[in-house]
């Protein structure tokens, strides 16, 4: 686990003050990964590259027992990527992503963008090709996967230009996106997935059919999960024109119940589609989110 200082560095409150996503991603990833086992860097579908001396803590499954039998010494296998991976970051930029509660250091979109930047840096560091697709009612940004020099900078520049507005049309945008992704890779969905519980299974099914690996990162504000309001409030839907006046303390239990059901449905949908599902609060430590993602990656490799 990264040391506490790294955790402080990776806190959203700290990172939200960094405007440069490129620098942010480098800080996060390098700082986060400095304490991790190098074995996690190993990509999926790697070929044997070389031996190296066994170091305490190396995964025993990479030990070459045949060499041990011959030499009576422990050696670990080092693999290299057979091919570079496509990593597509799909980011929801609808108006609901503009919300920032009193306990969150940034908006959901900003948080999702930080996660996307970190994942993009991580992929670029590994030699993978990473692309960025942003959508709301339509595709707003379509940066196809690449790994050339300057591609990461272009990606983070696009991230910085994104502004949340409009109504999310998950089905239309993702269907359009699915047609663009020819090569198989990892598709990471970064969205609050509101109004998407019906569209997500269809989208995931389409991507899975195309042999893409999908990771769904649902970014929500703590207020959306806790509904902590006390005063009588006129809630105005961020994407629709509807409003409702209610006394939150009286409907909090029902809200939480409905939200839990919604989250459960999303999770089940992802589970059914063999898709990793991460629930990220915009107040969560960014390192924890990355760790969860990387753990998922590891389990996929297993």
């Amino acid at each position, binding site marked *: 686990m990264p040391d506490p200082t790294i955790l402080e560095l990776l806190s959203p409150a700290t990172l939200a003050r960094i405007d440069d996503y490129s620098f942010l991603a480098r800080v996060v990833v390098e700082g986060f990964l400095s304490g991790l086992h190098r074995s996690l860097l190993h990509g999926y579908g790697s070929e044997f590259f070389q031996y190296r001396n066994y170091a305490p803590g190396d995964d025993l499954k990479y030990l070459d027992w045949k060499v041990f039998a011959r030499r009576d010494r422990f050696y670990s296998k080092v693999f290299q990527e057979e091919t570079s991976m496509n990593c597509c970051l799909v980011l929801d930029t609808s108006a*609901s*992503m503009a*919300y920032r509660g*009193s*306990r969150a250091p940034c908006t*959901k979109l900003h948080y999702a963008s930080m996660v996307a930047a970190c994942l993009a840096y991580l992929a670029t560091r590994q030699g993978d090709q990473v692309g960025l697709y942003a959508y709301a009612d339509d595709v707003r940004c379509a940066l196809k996967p690449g790994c050339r020099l300057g591609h990461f900078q272009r990606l983070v520049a696009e991230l910085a230009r994104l502004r949340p507005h409009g109504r999310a049309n998950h089905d239309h945008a993702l269907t359009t996106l699915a047609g663009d992704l020819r090569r198989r890779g990892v598709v990471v969905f970064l969205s*609050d997935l*509101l*109004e998407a519980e019906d569209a997500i299974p269809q989208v995931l099914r389409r991507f899975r059919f195309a042999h893409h690996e999908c990771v769904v990162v649902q970014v929500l*504000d*703590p*207020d*959306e*999960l*806790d*509904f*902590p*309001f*006390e*005063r*009588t*409030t*006129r*809630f*105005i*839907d*961020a*994407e*629709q024109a*509807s*409003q*409702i*006046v*209610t*006394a939150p*303390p*009286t*409907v909090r239990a*029902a*809200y939480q119940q*409905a*939200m839990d059901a*919604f989250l459960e449905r999303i999770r089940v949908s992802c589970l059914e589609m063999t898709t990793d599902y991460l629930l990220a609060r915009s107040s969560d430590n960014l390192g924890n989110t990355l760790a969860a993602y990387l753990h998922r990656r590891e389990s996929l490799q297993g």
Partner: protein
Amino acid sequence: MIAFLHPWFLLGLAGLAVPVVLHLMNREIPLPQVFPSIRFIRKGHLPREGHRRLQDILLLALRLLLLAAIVLTLSRPVWRPRPEQAGGTPAGAGVDLVFLVDASASMQGWDGLAKAREAVAATLDRYPGAEVGLVLSADRVLRALPPSPDAAVVRAAVAELAAEPVRGDPAPALAQAVRLLRPERRRVLAVVSDFQRPDWQTAALTALPPGVTLELSDVNPQRGGNVGVAGVSSRPLSPGLRHVVVEVRNYGLDTAQRTLEVRAGAETQSRPVSVEPLQAKRVAFSVKTQDVTRGEAVLTADTYPLDDSYSVWLGEAPPVRLLAVVPQAAEPDRQVDAFFVQKALQATTGDSGPRFVLDRVEAEHFFALDLADVRGILLLGAAGHFGDGDFAVVRRYLEQGGLVICTPGEAASQQFRALQQQGLLAAEFVGTNRVHSRVDPPFALEWVDPESALGRLFQGDDRSDLFLFPIYRYVRVRPGEAAHALLRIGDHDPVLLEQEVGKGRLFALTVAFDLRWSDLPASACFVPLLRELLGAAEPVDGGVRHLECGQDLPVQSGASPAAARGPAATPSPAPDTRRPGVIVVDGVPFEVNVPRRESVVEKVDLDGLRSLLLSPAAAATAVGAGTGAEAAAPRDRQAWPACAMAAAALLLVELLLAGLLERRDALPGPPS
């Protein structure tokens, strides 16, 4: 019971509706909140917020009470005694009740006396058991009865109440009434009057002591108009016939139709008269006054009868008193001057001019004289022997409007120099001209100021009388700008100079009334000349004096000239001036009539009068001065300080509570 000095402030209580309306409007306004999705939010029942509503109601109640306290403070509440106390204790127990009853002339009108008796009876009924006193007031305290348990004494005095035909002055009676109230008892002062404005507005009233309850009873708050005889003047037209002018004034707001009569002896003349509201009209009569000296002008009686008649003097005008001052010891010859003057004044001219009475006094006694009744002074050579004190008397006399005629004597140079130095005559003594022998032609007047009264008097043939008498000796003076020459010898030598000093006039002759100086005293022009000069001494109203009923006669000095006319008379009782009529004192007629200011209909403002008499100290220190009665009997005291303190306390509590609630509302909600 509670009363309010400024009741119109109570209209502000209507503003109590404002906080209530604001409270009803100020329901909790929902906080707008943009939320990512409202799909999971239900429209639950808005909470009753019972706890918060209670706090709001408490705040509302505090604010309403605060507003009410402010309004009450501004309306100046006063706590007035009730007629009865709780428990059946007589309201008058331990009470000194003193009545101040107005008995001035105006109370005789508009049924004032009858209503005053009713008011006294009603007040006595409200204070059974009180010890009752009485002060009857007119121009002074007529009667004072100290408080006694027997109210019948007061009732009897009030039953005999009669109005005096004099003006009202309530100040001495108020002071007397306050002295009758005993400090150890509860004190009630009940004023029964018509509160006529001239009487109450001009009186030197002072605030009552603290703890005195004041009750004001207006006997006739609504009274109608009034018409009265405001004044009468008369002058002789011919022997036995006088011109009488009566002024009738309407004090009311409606046109008045009356019949005016003038009664003189057996003769009565009447005229109808119509007077517009608040206007006066003069009506003239020619009345035969043979052997009649007193008359009366009478109007048709109305609600106030005392001003419907006016007593008037129809006899001869009193003689005009003159004083001749002669230097008896220094210049005995100046008696001749006085003799000629006396003869000239006694000469009848057949017209209706004033009668003059000439008194003589020696110059050395001049300073001690009372000159109040002297209309003119003749300094016959006396000014040359006057000292500074005498000239001070002359100056004071002139400045007050007197007339002085001075002629030269043997000390002419001293006379004119002294007059110049005293600032009484701007003329420089030059010398004396005289005829030295019989062959020398005498001097004569050559010029009279044609613009002067003398110039108008001596016109045509009459002027020859003035210019023909020979002058053997005269004083030469050089007049200054302030001295005006009326007669001259030649172009430069004035014989008669006139100078105004204050309100009076000084005539200075450069020729004595002595045949050794000139033939003027023996000439035909002497009498008209002297009468013309003395014409300024004639009083405007012919010498008749006017007094109000109750007014004292002017004090006569023991050294007055009147005492020198004959043997001293035995002292007679002072004439009664409290009744209308005409009285003659030492030959001077006095017309005594009811004061006309009692005829005014307007009243003084009772609220202002009450505020003037009830000082703030009376409300702040209303100490129980009773005999230990358990239930604190109500007193007439100011209640606004208590209202003001209550308002301040309510404001403090409201601010504290509102701040507390605001801070609590600002705290963030509990974390999830």
